[in-house]
């Protein structure tokens, strides 16, 4: 009976770890590796785990346990990925007990440090303006891209956190960037609308789903790879539509 309880707790821990990692944007090889390591060190015999970007299924045939964990939201927070991975290593080395791992995983979402919004905004503005110069834009467009990128990212961030609609946020962010660039050029504060738009759109590019899609497909997690690739494609299309609306009507 006691062993049964322990296996149940172990499965709970493994599933929470997997869920946290997939929600934060880890690649599937890493998730797989961490979950199997946790399960083996927690004493589950012959664990069987099947994970996709939208859910995890796990069973332990020896103790007749099966669990399903749906995953509904996906955000990007790579620090969580790193921390869950470190936690599983510490558990493997025997520095933490199963109960401690469980407790830390449950607190993970609130204890992980996060760059506050002003820092993110500054980072987005810097990414926009520096990439503009790197792509061969003129230094005259440095500050227009700085502000357009910042405003666009603020709109994207606000809609994403407040209303939680994924693709509309990219569309409106790109739309606002296009409007900013078009007005800046019309009032002769910048020289090239194209370069300002290209630079300012960069912080919205779906880098994590794109990279993970390639990695997952190569590692044999074809289902996850295709679903991530589709997500990245729709994000990219949303950005394109936002810019196209501006180019068509303004």
């Amino acid at each position, binding site marked *: 009976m006691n062993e049964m309880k322990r296996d149940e707790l172990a499965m709970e821990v493994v599933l929470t770890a997997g869920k946290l990692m997939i929600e934060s944007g880890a690649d599937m090889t890493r998730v797989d590796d961490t979950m199997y390591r946790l399960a083996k060190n927690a004493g589950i015999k012959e664990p069987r785990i099947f994970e996709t970007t939208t859910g995890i299924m796990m069973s332990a045939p020896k103790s007749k346990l099966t669990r399903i964990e749906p995953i509904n939201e996906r955000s990007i927070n*790579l620090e969580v990925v790193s921390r869950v991975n470190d936690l599983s290593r510490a558990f493997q080395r025997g520095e933490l007990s199963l109960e401690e791992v469980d407790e830390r995983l449950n607190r993970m979402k609130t204890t992980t440090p996060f760059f506050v919004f002003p820092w993110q905004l500054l980072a987005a503005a810097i990414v926009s303006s520096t990439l503009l110069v*790197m792509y061969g834009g003129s230094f005259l467009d440095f500050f227009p891209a700085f502000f357009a990128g910042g405003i666009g990212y603020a709109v994207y961030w606000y809609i994403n956190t407040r209303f939680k609609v994924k693709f509309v946020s990219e569309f409106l962010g790109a739309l606002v960037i296009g409007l900013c660039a078009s007005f800046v050029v019309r009032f002769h504060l910048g020289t090239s609308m194209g370069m300002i738009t290209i630079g300012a759109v960069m912080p919205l590019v779906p880098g994590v789903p794109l990279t993970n899609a390639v*990695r997952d497909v190569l590692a044999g997690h074809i289902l996850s790879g295709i679903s991530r690739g589709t997500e990245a494609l729709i994000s990219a299309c949303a950005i394109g539509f936002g810019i196209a609306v501006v180019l*068509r009507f303004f």
Partner: protein
Amino acid sequence: MNLILFLIVNVVFCYMATVGFGVILNIPRRGLNECGIVGVIGWLVYVCIKDCFSSSMLANLLAAFSIGMGAMFCARFKKMPMILFNIPSLVPLVPGGQAYRAVRYFAIGKNDLALSYLVQVGMIAGSIAVGFFLAEFVSQVYFKIHGYSQQ
């Protein structure tokens, strides 16, 4: 003189852009510096090959390959997952210019020109993926030989 200025601007700005993207993705603070260095290496490879051989496919492929290798060494050195160093470094390689032109020609109804730019976007994305794949392959072989330890 002009060349030196060009290189300094590229190195400094690429470092800032990569670290900035790292902040947006919330990379652990102790990995941000390495992240910037990998990004600079990738971008320098891209710029050099693009200017010397005027081939944007080869440049993207080799840049993605060197980013993959750099990320692998940083991951082993810092004992952190590889994707922390990969993702922000790859962002400057995104074919933004071609994608913008494709969207613009679609918007004004010149579909034939737009399609040719779209094909270019696809080919550049494909060459980045192949470079990435090669780096992944080399790292797999490396781990097979030296044993799969912490990364």
